[in-house]
C-alpha cells in the first residue's frame, strides 16, 4: 500500500508530502506518525506540503488533527511551504488551523522548531 515516508533527523521527524493526498493516505499518515513519535521519542515534527496542490476540508482537518495529536505526545508540529492557492482554499473553508505553526520553507521551519523546543524546555525547567 502507498505510504508517505517519515524520516528521522535527531529529535525531529520529517514528513514530505510529494503526492496528491487522499483520505486513506491521510489516515495512514496519522497512524504512522503518532506511532513514530512515540517510538523515536521525537520532540518535533516538520510537515512539508510544498508539493501539495489540492486540499479539501478533510485533508485540512487531518493536518490540524495531526498537529493536535503530536502536541498531546509532547512534540511540536510545523507545517511548511503551503502554496497560496492551498492557503486561500483552507481559509475559504473556514479552516485557519489555529493550533498549527507554519513557516515559509524547511529552513525557517527547522529554526522555528528549535526555538520552540528551546523555549518549551525553559518552561519545563521553570515548572519543576
Amino acid at each position, binding site marked *: 500500500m502507498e505510504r508517505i515516508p517519515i524520516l528521522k533527523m535527531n529529535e525531529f521527524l520529517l514528513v514530505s508530502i510529494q503526492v496528491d493526498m487522499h483520505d486513506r493516505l491521510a489516515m495512514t499518515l496519522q497512524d504512522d506518525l503518532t506511532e513514530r513519535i512515540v517510538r523515536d521519542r521525537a520532540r518535533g515534527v516538520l510537515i512539508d506540503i510544498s508539493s501539495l496542490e489540492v486540499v479539501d476540508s478533510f485533508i485540512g482537518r487531518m493536518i490540524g488533527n495531526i498537529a493536535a495529536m503530536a502536541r498531546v505526545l509532547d512534540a511540536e508540529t510545523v*507545517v511548511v511551504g503551503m502554496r*497560496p492557492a492551498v*492557503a486561500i482554499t483552507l481559509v475559504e473553508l473556514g479552516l485557519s488551523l489555529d493550533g498549527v505553526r507554519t513557516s*515559509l520553507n524547511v529552513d525557517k521551519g527547522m529554526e522555528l522548531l528549535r526555538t520552540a523546543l528551546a523555549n518549551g524546555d525553559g518552561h519545563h525547567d521553570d515548572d519543576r
Partner: protein
Amino acid sequence: MGTRPSSRLVDVIRKHESGILADWVKTQFSILKSTERLSESALRADCERFLPLLRAALQASGDEDIMTPAWDGPRDMLSELSRLRAKAGYTPSETAVFVMSLKQPLFERLRGEIGRDADTLADEVWHTTLLLDRLALFTTEVYQKGRDEIILRQQEEMLELSTPVVQLWDGILALPLIGTLDSARTQVVMENLLQRIVETGAGIAIIDITGVPTVDTLVAQHLLKTVAAARLMGADCIISGIRPQIAQTIVHLGVELSTVVTKATLADAFAIALRKTGASLARGSKS
C-alpha cells in the same frame, strides 16, 4: 408584411446615389456640427463607403433581415463606426443619427420615383423604415457593447493599479490598500500578497489601510481572511494605518481584531517588523 425584394429601393439608390449622398451628409452635418468632432470630409467618406454596401446587401438579400450573411458588409462597417464613435465619446443619439438621417433623402427620392401611387409609396416607405430602424438599433447595440468593453477594461486596470505589493526591507512586505475592499478585490489582493510572499520569502507583511475609506464587518472579514491565509503560509501580518474614526467603527461593530497585530501608522508597524526580523535601525552621528 412579406419578405418581398425591395427592388424599388435598390433602383432608387442606384439612380440617385450622388443626390442621396449629398443630402444625407448635409443632414448629418447639420446635426453633428454643434459637437465639432467630425470633419465633413471624414463624414462624407464614411457615407460614400456605406451607401454602395447598403445597395449591394439589399440586392443580394432583398429583405430587411439584417442578421443574414448578405448583410455582413453593412453590419461590419456599422460595427466599426459605432466602436470608433463610442471610443471618441459620442452620445448614443449622435451615433445612431448616421443611419437615421438616411431616412429623409431616401423617402424624398422614393416619392419622386413612385409619384401619386399612395399604396406603393406607403409600402416602400414602410419597408425602408423597417430596414433603417433595424440598422440604427444594431448601431446602438454595438455602441453600447463598445462602451461596456471600455468600462470593463478600465475596471480591470484599476484592479491592477490599486494592489501593489512593495518590499520595504529584507523579509518585510507592505501592501498599501487604497479604495473600498469588496470580495473581488480582496481575492486579487490576497493572491498578489501570497504570491509575493512565496517569491520573496518574506516573513512579515504589513497591510496598510490608510487609504481604505470605510471598514465595515465585511471588509474586516476580508482583512482577517487575508491575514489567516498569510499565516497558513508562515508569514505574520500587521495591520497598520487605522484611523481614529475606523478604530471607533471597528469596536462599535464588535469586530474581533485581537488575533492580529494592529498599529496606528505604517512607521510603527515597520519598527515592529524590523524588531521581529532581528534588524535594527540606528541614527548615525553626523560629522
